[in-house]
């Protein structure tokens, strides 16, 4: 511009001084020529720049608090929902690495490389750098629950019960190799203290075992849940008992055991049956190494009582040799899988003859092992719907078509299609297939 007039209204200047940017006026204001008729049309413009704000006055923590916190009253009204989470903007940033890719010897590169001195130099830009940084920041904003394999979530996933917490901590040389701890119960317990009033603690009930007959259980309490689990885990490792397994897959024999109001009937099962029992018993069996068993609980299902009853039962088991010795007879096994070929499992030192056995002696193995206790099996009644009239109608309708699926399969096998004895004579005598139906409906 040819002629310049300084914009010098005192009013405006005052207002600038309030904004404390007066010292920048000479550089920040454009001068305009009032005498120039052309320039009169141009309204003088002011571009203001602030070099100070609460962004550089407050600390990062204070700033984050401002945008991520809600007042207590607001929280109650549900205002805390959907609010952002604090991000650590330093994450992913490395000193010396930035937008422009520069080698700084001594900062992000060695000073001497071989015999040569490394010089500061600019390298081509890394286009991924900014995207990577953004990605790292984005991952911080989302809430992520702890990802766990469904098989490792325990019984329900909501509570710790049934979850594995790893082997016990090593004691000296003993590293507890092959051991595993499972949580059976984790609950809040409360006690009244004279000085503190109501005191809350976490109680953890843990079972430990090596999957090969060695197992123990313990309960421990602590204010912190994690500490309670750790204490219970390590305590259970010091209370190990040896449990004998039959062929490494099931219990030695059927037995009945009880603790308090909890009564358990345990039935030995052949290979492949699996564990059909209460979840706590199942977890215990997995830890002990029992793979096939049926157990029925009668009475209370308090987990601690179940555990104690089951362990008592397991420890009271007798080996076949002991049973045979007590009975004075051979113990013989008959397996249906090999055609019931007799196999002597245990023999007494002196076997009795048939004349020596009194007529009223209990000879049934199951009855003998359960101490004359008979397992109550409820009678199975037909389901309720079989008494309805609709069931009768259903059965009558099913009678005609009960074997259709088998016949269809047989026809597909032998003819490759569904046909009738008339199909040869009348080729159109074929049931409509799924595709044909669609075509027909389109034609219509």
């Amino acid at each position, binding site marked *: 511009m040819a002629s310049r007039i300084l914009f010098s209204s005192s009013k405006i200047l005052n207002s600038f001084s309030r904004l404390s940017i007066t010292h920048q006026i000479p550089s920040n204001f454009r001068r305009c020529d009032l005498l120039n008729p052309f320039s009169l049309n141009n309204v003088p413009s002011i571009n203001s720049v602030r070099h100070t704000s609460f962004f550089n006055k407050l600390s990062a923590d204070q700033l984050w608090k401002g945008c991520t916190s809600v007042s207590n009253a607001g929280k109650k009204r549900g205002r805390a929902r959907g609010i952002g989470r604090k991000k650590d903007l330093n994450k992913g940033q490395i000193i010396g690495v930035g937008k422009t890719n520069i080698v700084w010897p001594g900062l992000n590169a060695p000073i001497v490389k071989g015999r040569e001195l490394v010089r500061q130099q600019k390298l081509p830009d890394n286009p991924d750098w900014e995207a990577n940084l953004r990605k790292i920041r984005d991952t911080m904003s989302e809430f992520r629950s702890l990802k766990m394999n469904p098989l490792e979530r325990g019984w329900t996933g909501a509570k710790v019960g049934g979850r594995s917490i790893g082997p016990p901590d090593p004691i000296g040389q003993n590293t507890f190799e092959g051991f595993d701890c499972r949580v059976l119960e984790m609950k809040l317990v409360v006690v009244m203290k004279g000085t503190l009033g109501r005191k809350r603690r976490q109680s953890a009930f843990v079972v430990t075992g090596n999957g090969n007959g060695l197992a123990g259980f313990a309960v421990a309490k602590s204010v912190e849940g994690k500490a309670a689990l750790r204490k219970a885990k390590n305590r259970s490792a010091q209370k190990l008992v040896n449990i004998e397994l039959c062929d490494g897959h099931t219990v030695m*024999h059927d037995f009945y055991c009880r603790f308090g109001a909890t009564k358990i009937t345990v039935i030995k099962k052949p290979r492949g049956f699996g564990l059909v029992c209460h979840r706590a018993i199942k977890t215990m069996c997995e830890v002990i190494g029992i793979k096939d068993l049926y157990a029925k609980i009668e009475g209370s299902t308090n987990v601690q009582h179940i555990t104690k009853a089951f362990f008592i039962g397991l420890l009271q088991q007798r080996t076949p040799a002991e049973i045979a010795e007590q009975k004075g007879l051979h113990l013989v096994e008959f397996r*249906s*899988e090999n*055609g*019931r*070929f007799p196999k002597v499992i245990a023999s007494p030192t002196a076997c009795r003859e048939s004349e020596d056995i009194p007529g009223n002696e209990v000879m049934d193995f199951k009855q003998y092992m359960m101490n004359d206790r008979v397992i109550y099996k409820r009678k199975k009644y037909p389901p309720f719907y079989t008494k309805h009239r609709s069931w009768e109608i259903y059965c009558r309708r099913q009678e005609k078509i009960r074997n259709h699926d088998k016949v269809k399969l047989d026809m597909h096998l032998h003819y490759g299609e569904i046909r009738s004895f008339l199909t040869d004579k009348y080729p159109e005598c074929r049931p409509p297939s799924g595709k044909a139906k669609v075509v027909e409906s389109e034609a219509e």
Partner: protein
Amino acid sequence: MVRILHIWLYKDPAPKFIDAETQKLLKSITRLQLDKIFRNRPNPINTVEYKFMTTEEIENEVKKAFTKARELLQMPPIVQVEQANCQVISKDPGLDSYSNCKYVITDITYGVNDSERTIVVRQTDGTLETADPKLRKRINQIYFPLQNRHIRDPRMFEEENLRGCLDRHEYEFVLDRMCIQFEPFEQKFHEISSKVYLHINETKEFDILRSTRHFGPMSFFLAWHKMIDDLVIDMIKRDYLTNAVEVICLMYNLNGIEYDKGILKQLEQFTSSFESREENGFAIAKKGLEKELNETVGKSIEQFKIDEASLEFIDAFCKSHAIKKIQLTLCLQMYKEGNEEKKRLLEGLRKAHGVS
């Protein structure tokens, strides 16, 4: 193949098969191996039962198990193929074209044998005649179904599918299913069984059938057709010399070849000891069904004597009637060397123990 079937058609093998001596030889050849007969098999309800027993009761149970084993080893018979003979009962021209389909009339009285049941057909031209075997089988299966037998032949027995089964060495499965689906007098029975036996003879997998009910018929088939060389070689390799001798005797018997029957009497003593295992049932039940150890480790002097006699007999067979002479001679030589060594070991042991 064709030649073989012709023999079954025109020369009845049944009298030779049912013959007491043949049966005795076949049973001995089959070998009753408890661990194989009572091997673990899949069954729907897997149960384990325990019982308190006295020694006497256990021995009875083992005896029962032996009886059951013998029942399981009962051989399906080899009989001639039955020819269809339809007898015309009456011809009623008056009923001609009365209907455009045949009428099958069946006597479904309870308790009548399937083979004796009266089944007649009224043809469309009014002829009343007895049903042919194919129709009889179908009608019998419809009214009195046998478990696992199908009205149509399973596709497993079709040429291509059967080959697949045989290549997988599922001989026992094929033969068992064949016994269910077909009667021994049916053409198909002989066709399939001969195919299986020939395949086994080719692959030399005789051990798969050993101690099953099909080993006897297979040996009979091979002996009848004078192709026992591979079977004998297999038996020598497994140290079943007595069985090898028995197979050769069976072949001589079936084909009318003269031989010295003294050898069988000599062997009887040894085989009887094998059969008399039943006596000490308790020991068997105590041991369980573990694989029986090869008895060759502790051979007695008597056994060596029998071995020598058997080897002589097999040598004679090798020279006169064997087809694969070279292989058989080689196998015999190897066996003799092995046996010599064992004999020397036994003598050394006896000397060391001071037994003269």
